[in-house]
């Protein structure tokens, strides 16, 4: 009796296992996404279109929060400045990372691996520590100033090194450079060298090879780097707060200030506009550069 039952149950159990395994595998990440991303986004989205007076929510739909933000020249200017700063950091990362990634691909395999470990080495320490380390370097009584004064090159410490947009860009470039370098390296490493040889054989100069062959073929890597650097830069809060100056307000500082002003609707609307801006950018870039090629998907 029991043997008959076993036989009849076995195939069903196996079938169930095959069907449910992918679902089970995706369950934790799906739950995580639902709880930590989708749900807060829904709450924020709802808050941005409801009438909220301090802590009192009325179920009345309104576009007031969006109109307040989009109708404020000041806050739009700060958003614009934030985007410009993020673009500047992204451009600097690309300019520095591209030659480095090319250099990396030219190295023997073993050294390449060592170099890659060195690239990701900063990630072994806390983000905050790395920012504080820069503050120690750039500060008025920091290593650079002490060194320059000690060498007799300057009489007074240089004060432009810290607490301004220069230091925000410098520290951000340092923080995000590895992301750009890794994305570019991945694309460059997959580039067929025979294409470059062919271009050279056909008489192309090095800059022509780069401009007409290497760059177009590595554009997905460039765009991936752009996304890895630009998106977190738009939402940067810690670095500008720590190394920025009195006028270093970025859009996230403004979102925080709206929360402190108990304007939860406006803060939500601002956050949503930023998200929308970034999403549009990702969609455009994804279409333009076929980002999936970077990872060979």
């Amino acid at each position, binding site marked *: 009796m029991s043997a008959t039952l076993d036989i009849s149950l076995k195939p069903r159990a196996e079938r169930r296992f095959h069907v449910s395994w992918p679902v089970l595998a995706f369950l934790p990440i799906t739950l995580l996404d639902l709880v930590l991303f989708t749900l807060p986004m829904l709450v924020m989205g709802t808050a941005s279109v409801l009438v909220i007076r301090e*802590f009192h929510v009325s179920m009345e739909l309104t576009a007031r929060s969006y109109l307040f933000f989009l109708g404020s020249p*000041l*806050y739009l*200017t700060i958003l614009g400045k934030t985007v410009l700063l993020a673009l500047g950091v992204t451009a600097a990362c690309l300019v520095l990372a591209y030659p480095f990634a090319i250099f990396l691909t030219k190295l023997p395999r073993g050294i390449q691996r060592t170099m890659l470990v060195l690239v990701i080495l900063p990630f072994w320490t806390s983000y905050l520590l790395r920012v504080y380390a820069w503050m120690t370097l750039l500060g*008025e009584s920091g290593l650079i100033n002490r060194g320059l004064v000690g060498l007799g090159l300057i009489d007074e410490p240089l004060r432009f090194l810290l607490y301004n947009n220069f230091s925000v860009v410098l520290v951000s470039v340092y923080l995000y450079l590895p992301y750009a370098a890794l994305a570019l390296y991945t694309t460059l490493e997959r580039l067929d060298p025979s294409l470059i040889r062919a271009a050279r054989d056909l008489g192309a100069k090095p800059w022509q090879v780069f401009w007409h062959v290497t760059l177009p073929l590595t554009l997905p890597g460039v765009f991936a780097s752009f996304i890895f650097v630009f998106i977190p830069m738009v939402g940067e809060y810690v670095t500008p*707060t720590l190394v920025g*100056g009195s006028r270093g307000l970025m859009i996230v500082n403004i979102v925080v200030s709206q929360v*402190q*002003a*108990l304007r939860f609707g406006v803060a939500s609307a601002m956050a949503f506009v930023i998200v929308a801006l970034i999403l549009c950018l990702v969609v455009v870039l994804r279409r333009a550069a076929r980002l999936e090629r970077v990872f060979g998907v």
Partner: protein
Amino acid sequence: MTISRFTRRDFLRRSAIAGVGGAALTGTSLLTRPAKAALEGPVNALTWGGRVMQDQQDDFFKESGVRVNFIGASGNSENLAKIKLGGGSQYDIVGVDALWVPKFYEEGVIEAFDMEKWPEYNDMFDQFKNLSIWKVGNQYLAQPWAWSPLVLWYNADKIKTPPTSIKFLWDPELKGRIALTRQQEDVIAWMGIATGAKKPYDMTKDELAAAKDALKRLMPNVLKFPPQEEELVKLAADGSIWVTALSAGGALRIKDAGGPTMKGFLPPEGYIGYFDGDCIVKGAAHKAAALAWMQHRVHAKYVMENFLKYRRPLAYKGPLEALKSQGKSDYAHELFYDQPEILSKMAIIGPPPDIGAYVDAFNEVAGN
């Protein structure tokens, strides 16, 4: 190698021994358990740093069997939001700044309690006993804790002539040498004081415009607006800034961080300051234990310990005599502990009726 055989009988015998031992241990622990075990805990306190000290917590546990869970508070508006969401099931106590207390009460998240019968009530400075904004009938909305004016501390090595007016902040010699915490309404309130506003936290439109203009003019002198006081201490200690606004023990904190000698200045035009307290969350699950904890922590011994550690005056005068007997009268005076009359002179930090207008004014200057 010998492998001993572990029989069912052995298992039962050893289990019995373990059971007796366990019971004995339980009995022992019961014997050492605190006397007032009737209170139900733990007490969940969402409050400011510098409130709950470990030895106090340990003593309270010995006495009552109740643990106090300290949850660091980040700001009044955030606290209010958290209490609104979590309520009495998650929090028993919430730390609130002066003028926010009535707001918390209006929002229905805290409840009044009777404090007059508490043993340490008479130890409280009269200024707190008679605080009408914290009272509902004879009951209190908050148990007062710390207070301090925000002092303008200046680097005595760099600023040789002691300032006589708040206007010294605009001295071109101080270019990039001032830092204030990024509390928009406090920065604007300071500007209001400088421009003669009657109520720095409730300015008229014209007063607010004048304050904004003053901030605009001050900006060249401001190095930055860090979010935390600790960063102000660090900036003053490494010489990056020469002037900042910190509470009573500011100079000592800067000195401790390896900084220069700072001197304090309370401008004759006025100054801002704070006092804070702890409130009972409405419907607190462990209200009795929370009230017991609040009574426990204001014993003169703990208040004194707290004052010496955090170096700002508290709402209880008990330790003053002890400080005098220890020859620390000057220290107490330097930290304003024996000058509670200052409370009535300072513009109390709180949410302006239109806090958004203050934030916008700050952002308009700092964002441009």
